[in-house]
């Protein structure tokens, strides 16, 4: 039997209260795959005083374009002004704002954690609970990998920290809009119950 972890389940009534939802917004930016594009975007953010919370860049299936997923701190400026300024960059083709409630987000976490004989079993149990993997094994340490929604990773790293984290690295999130489904529509018409 395998028990999977469901983020935030039961602990918070309203999903919009979840960490990161209120002040962060996800922009999925399609750009021309050219030298210097990332510099232009990063420079625009710093020059206009906007905050980047996390950033992930990768080529798309069409080699002429890359997709940049930017999580912005919208407390620093209205999202509208940020997207309008981004649009002015010549190499930016398309910007989609992904509402965290209407998108699927994913992030990857790798961590090296203390795991001697006495705690190793507990660490492995926790990793299994989060559908993670052990990717490296040392005499008294393990390196583990977990993927999933950002707040699942928040919870995982919090739990992991009790064993003593040696090093931890997260990728920053990537996201796509949720697919249109009958159940989405039902949800909208009945109001979102949490």
């Amino acid at each position: 039997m395998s028990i999977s972890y469901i983020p935030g389940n039961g602990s918070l009534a309203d999903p919009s209260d979840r960490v990161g939802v209120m002040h962060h917004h996800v922009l999925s930016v399609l750009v021309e795959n050219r030298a210097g594009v990332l510099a232009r975007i990063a420079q625009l953010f710093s020059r206009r005083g906007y905050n980047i919370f996390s950033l992930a860049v990768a080529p798309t299936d069409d080699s002429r374009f890359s997709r940049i997923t930017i999580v912005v701190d919208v407390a620093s400026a209205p999202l509208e002004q940020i997207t309008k300024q981004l649009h002015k960059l010549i190499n930016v083709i398309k910007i989609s704002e992904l509402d965290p409630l209407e998108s699927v987000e994913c992030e990857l976490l790798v961590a090296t954690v203390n795991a001697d004989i006495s705690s190793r079993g507990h660490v492995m149990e926790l990793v299994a609970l989060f559908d993670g993997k052990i990717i490296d094994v040392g005499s008294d340490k393990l390196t583990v990998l977990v993927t999933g929604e950002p707040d699942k990773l928040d919870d995982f790293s919090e739990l992991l920290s009790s064993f003593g984290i040696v090093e931890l690295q997260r990728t920053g999130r990537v996201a796509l809009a949720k697919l249109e489904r009958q159940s989405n529509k039902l949800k909208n018409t009945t109001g979102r119950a949490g």
Partner: protein
Amino acid sequence: MKLTGAQALIKSLEMQGVDVMFGLPGGAILPVYDPIIDSPIRHILVRHEQGAGHMAEGYAHATGRPGVAMVTSGPAATNIVTPLADAYMDSVPIVVITGQVATGSIGTDAFQEADITGITMSVTKHNWLVTDANDIPNVVSEAFHVATTGRPGPVLIDFPKDVANAEMDWYWPTSVDMPGYKPNSRGHSKMIAAAVKMMYEATRPIFYVGGGVLKARGSEALAELVELTGIPVVTTLMARGAFPDEHPLCLGMPGMHGNYTAVTSMQQADLLIALGSRFDDRVTGKLDGFAPHAKVIHVDIDPAELGKLRRPDVPIVGDCRSVIEDIIRAIKADPDAYQQRADISDWIKTIKEWQAKHPLKYDQPALSGVLKPQFVIEKLRDANPSDTIVVSGVGQHQMWASQYWKFNHPYTWINSGGLGTMGFAVPAAIGAKVGKPDRVVWAIDGDGCFQMTAQELVTASMERIPIKVALLNNSYLGMVRQWQEMFYGERYSEVYLSPDLPDYVKWAEAMGCASFRVENAEEVGPAIEKANEINDRPVVVEFRTDSSEKVFPMVPAGVSNDNIILGPESLGGK
């Protein structure tokens, strides 16, 4: 046809219709200077690269065509950063070409290497580093396209030396392929209809006209719309001349040094129709105290300007001219609604009363007494044709020029508004005169500004570009002195320049100009007459003006426009 990269670059400029460029050669750009000898493009050799950039700007302001400057790498490229920043702030279309070290040396701290595409990212609309000679025609056509369409602005092409020397097969693209650049010029019809409705309902409307109207070449359309609606107009520092000052509905310049009526009518308005203006802090004063009762219709080609500082009730993304024309069309299509529009005659009456009560004013004492700068500008204005192009520096003289000149034609006022670049006037005037050789071009400059770029008068003399310079010598960095007098308890810190060091007349003469000095009001008229008779070389007339004269009205920085200071008498006994 095989061409070198350098030849392809010059040929591409020719294909773009470039007739003149401003520049100065050096190592990395050397290969490109060779084909210039065989090109019909006129090259004007400047004395400092900043001069080349401002000349390109002056040319663009005066003609509406993009100005072109070409300089070498490293220090030359960094010298032209200020004009790029200036052009970016004031939306001036210029194309700057910089030499660059060979591609193989980029990133090695090679001799005269500067990362100019990195440095200028935030002060250009876009920039390109050319890495393949085959890209040259495409890059040049993209660069001119980006500079001149949408919201105009400066672009930069960085051109490595090995690319200039490489061979390519010549072609000329018939179109540009820029998937991420599609400026929108037509306003949304629903928004246009909403704007017309709002204009009809307003009882205290004002047209708040900015530089965008000039960029869109929309002055004629604006004049028609004003005639049709009877709504009064303020023209910002960047829009002086977009609507004629002599028109009874023109209220002149608003803002920090705007006249009482222009400032107050915006404060009291119930509707601001912002056309190509951007709610700059020098216009709004304290933003949350600005035009507190007004609804806002905001027309701009740059969507990012809408809602950037003030949320519009009716946002319209589009080219000002096309939107104004659409508004006129919508008005004419519904005569009944036009007949039923709100009566604004009380508003006009109030405005006329303000104008009568609070005109701009200054005191010129006896003709032999100390010379007031405003008097000089009025004399200049009256002694020159109304289509004279006036170019100014930055400081008190700039504000007086904008206040006291009567601008009755578009593109007759050229200045550095957004960046406020001292040293702009002389080179920009040269560029304007090159673009409009048949027009009288007067630079109105300050003694501080003049010293920053005066060397370009050597360029003007050599190239026989007969501009005229009215140097308002008040011996001070006057604008800064004014702030120290008013806000720092008359503690003058590092603002004194001396009236006669340098000796401006000798200096101008050494640079090949005719030059004379005027010390009192009596001599002003004859000196201007004499200057206007000289057309074979540049002229510099030095006017020794009152050091203590201040620019009024004034709304101190960060204060609401309601608290306008009308003149020295309202300063109180501080």
